[in-house]
């Protein structure tokens, strides 16, 4: 045994392990895309129209950007605390509202410089995230319950922020519009760039997160805290801080998603930005092969999960399933994917195979 261990190079086994976890999510995504091609032959067709890339696949990646960003944040939250942050959708709406309100509705200038407004939105997300983090990490309130507070309040605050002057008084609950073209570039295209900006942002965000997780020990800390908080404390990890970090990070990612979403519609729609996104984000994490019980996680898995979900929605739209009925198909596909990924299914599968082999052997 000793020999075996020395002879098996670590790197190889590491790669094998990650491959194993990612194999099924990737497989599911590919299957999803394959079905799409069968239904819509032009699915993979990408053309350049009006100076930008155009096609179903581009739509999926573009529309999926916010989901990817949210899924990344959600992954860390789930890994460190074994619970989900259900406030991400509402926080996105809130951050979007902050950004739009600061930018103002003028046709020829911003009320606040754009970068500053975006920064403010991210700070708003960060504040919400740290509020959640404080409740979960410090006060030890169960994640879903703690985040339920902002889940309810977030849109209320967003509406409060979305105030506009009507006949002399500020009336909240309005949809505010940004009239400056340059703001739309965040959710659209930069001049002479063929790739949608959200895709850039999402890729950059994933890369930075990945970099942080692999170049510092935070990834290891998160896993440790997610698996055994007490043990983590005794080996010198401040679990409160780690969880706090994860929730705050998730808040920032919600803020970023909110900025993109509001830039797409260049307005602050407190009611609809990020609506039900928390569910999709949690689903992405699960479809990526991650356990919702916390502990080990794969960031890339979640990204693939997010793409799978977006591909699913886009293709259901493409087939012409009505919006109300989409959930039925979504449910079935999701259950199939997670069932195939489950340990138990693998066990059954191998049992069946063994059985067959045994039968064959008898027959021979």
């Amino acid at each position: 045994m000793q020999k075996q261990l020395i002879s098996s190079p670590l790197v190889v086994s590491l790669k094998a392990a990650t491959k194993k976890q990612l194999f099924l999510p990737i497989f599911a995504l590919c299957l999803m895309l394959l079905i799409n091609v069968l239904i819509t032959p032009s699915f993979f067709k990408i053309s350049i129209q009006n100076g930008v890339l155009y096609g179903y696949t581009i739509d999926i990646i573009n529309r999926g950007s916010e989901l990817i960003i949210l899924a990344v944040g959600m992954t860390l939250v789930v890994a460190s605390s074994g619970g989900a942050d259900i406030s991400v959708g509402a926080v996105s709406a809130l951050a979007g509202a902050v950004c739009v309100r600061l930018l103002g509705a003028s046709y020829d200038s911003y009320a606040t410089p754009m970068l500053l407004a975006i920064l403010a939105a991210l700070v708003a997300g960060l504040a919400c995230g740290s509020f959640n983090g404080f409740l979960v990490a410090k006060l030890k309130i169960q994640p879903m319950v703690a985040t339920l507070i902002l889940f309810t309040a977030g849109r209320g605050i967003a509406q409060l922020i979305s105030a506009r002057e009507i006949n002399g008084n500020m009336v909240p609950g309005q949809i505010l519009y940004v009239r400056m073209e340059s703001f739309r570039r965040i959710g659209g295209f930069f001049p002479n760039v063929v790739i949608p900006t959200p895709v850039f942002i999402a890729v950059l965000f994933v890369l930075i997160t990945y970099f942080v997780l692999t170049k510092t020990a935070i990834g290891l800390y998160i896993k440790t805290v997610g698996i055994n908080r007490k043990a983590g404390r005794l080996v010198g990890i401040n679990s409160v801080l780690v969880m706090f970090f994860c929730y705050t990070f998730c808040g920032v990612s919600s803020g970023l998603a909110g900025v993109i979403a509001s830039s797409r519609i260049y307005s602050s729609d407190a009611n609809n930005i990020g609506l039900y996104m928390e569910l999709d984000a949690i689903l992405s994490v699960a479809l990526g092969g991650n356990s919702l019980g916390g502990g080990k996680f794969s960031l890339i898995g979640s990204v693939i999960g997010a793409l799978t979900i977006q591909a699913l929605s886009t293709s259901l739209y493409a087939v012409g399933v009505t919006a109300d009925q989409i959930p039925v198909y979504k449910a079935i596909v999701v259950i199939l994917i997670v069932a195939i990924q489950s340990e138990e299914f693998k066990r059954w599968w191998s049992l069946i195979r063994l059985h067959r082999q045994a039968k064959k052997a008898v027959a021979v």
Partner: protein
Amino acid sequence: MDDSVILTMKQINMTFPGVKALNNVDFSLKRGEIHALMGENGAGKSTLIKVLTGVHTMDSGEIYLQGQDTMVINHSPKEAQENGISTVYQEVNLCPNISVAENVFVGRQPLTRFRAVKWKEMNARAKKILQSVGLQDLDVTKPLGDYSVAIQQMVAIARAVDIQCKVLILDEPTSSLDEHEVEKLFSVMRKLKEKGVGIIFVTHFLEQVYEVCDCITVLRNGDLVGRYAISELPRVKLVAKMLGHDFNDLASLRNLDAKKLNNEESVILKAVGLGHAGTIHPFDLTISKGEVIGLTGLLGSGRSELARALYAADHPDKGALHFKGIHLKAKDPIDSMKAGMGFLPEDRKEESIISDLSVRENMVIALQAKTGIFKLLPLAKQNELALQFIKALNIKTPSPETLVKQLSGGNQQKVILGRWLITNPDFLILDEPTRGIDVGTKTEIQKLIIKLAQSGMTIMFISSEIDEMLRTVNRLCVLRDGLKAGELVNDNLDRHQVMAAIAGDQ
């Protein structure tokens, strides 16, 4: 076949990913027999038991029970219980959230005619059963989690003993018990034996084997070494069979350079009136560099609490601690670690093992935390450290990337020990480090402790085994009811003197 055989296992094979845990193992048990199952850590003892009780599915093999002509395969512990096999598993496997009484009776509560649980009767019966194993006035309505590991262990035993069975399996039940409780357990076992129950007993304490067992089966690396009557296998031979080679006896070991240490200038740690409300009364303690100090006392006397207070695992609310000449105001373990302490806690499952992480990650985590979050140890370095200590501690694992939860209990303990050695602390607290560790390794660990002390590390050693302590420590600190009751210098102590000091009737 012999009429009195109640359990036969034949040609049992069991494979885990990367490990052949059992290889054609045979086992049989007679009526009224106490049968010791022996072997090193990772020999396959627990696996054999789990295969028998349906926790694991074996690859191949046959199991027969008396009174049933056909082969029996238990698909679940429930089925095993119904087939008359009652088990105490190695790690305490009870539910901390429900009451003690419920833990004893869950799944078999006394019911009224309308199938309603009779709470009063259940509590009363639980109380009686617990008394029979020596737990007087325990509040059986309190959640089990409120009690210490030892008590939980006794509750688990009480539960198993109470289940009407033909076969009783005890997988290292004594690892967290003190002598008094062990005695109680033995008397219960003897009673059951008289009733004709066959008992499988796993332990790493050789004396206990010779005290109660009739018969020994030895496993090594998943292979059956043999089955022996107790009389034909003296201690030395047993150890040799377990290890597969001869073995220099423990008695030869002794930490000899004890006295020369107690001079003031080499004091490394000094606690003045340190205490933590509710667990340990304020105490004074001075420890010199290179010393091995033992903590001794009865169950629940506060040994762990004292250690935890020193390490700031429970932030002490009274007194002061001077460590390496500075006033250490540690709020959290990390502060103590940075100052140069290490702490191997008592409850492996709850407080040490990070079950879903690999052996490597489990080993380097403490050093990583000490180094700081932004200075990730390079993978090569992590690997090097892990391999070094896997070798040094002789940890049985297919690879450093194996998940630590897949190791046997004893090997998990070694991983944790390795975790702290990697941080190279000045002062290392070991709370029951040898729990569940086989004789061979135990000696290794004791030797290691002495060696580390000689090389300048200061060690606090807590163990329920007095002999082990006497062999390794320079000084013994006696605790009673959360109070530091006195100190004994280990010049020529024997166990009787220590026992007397613990009991408090000098």
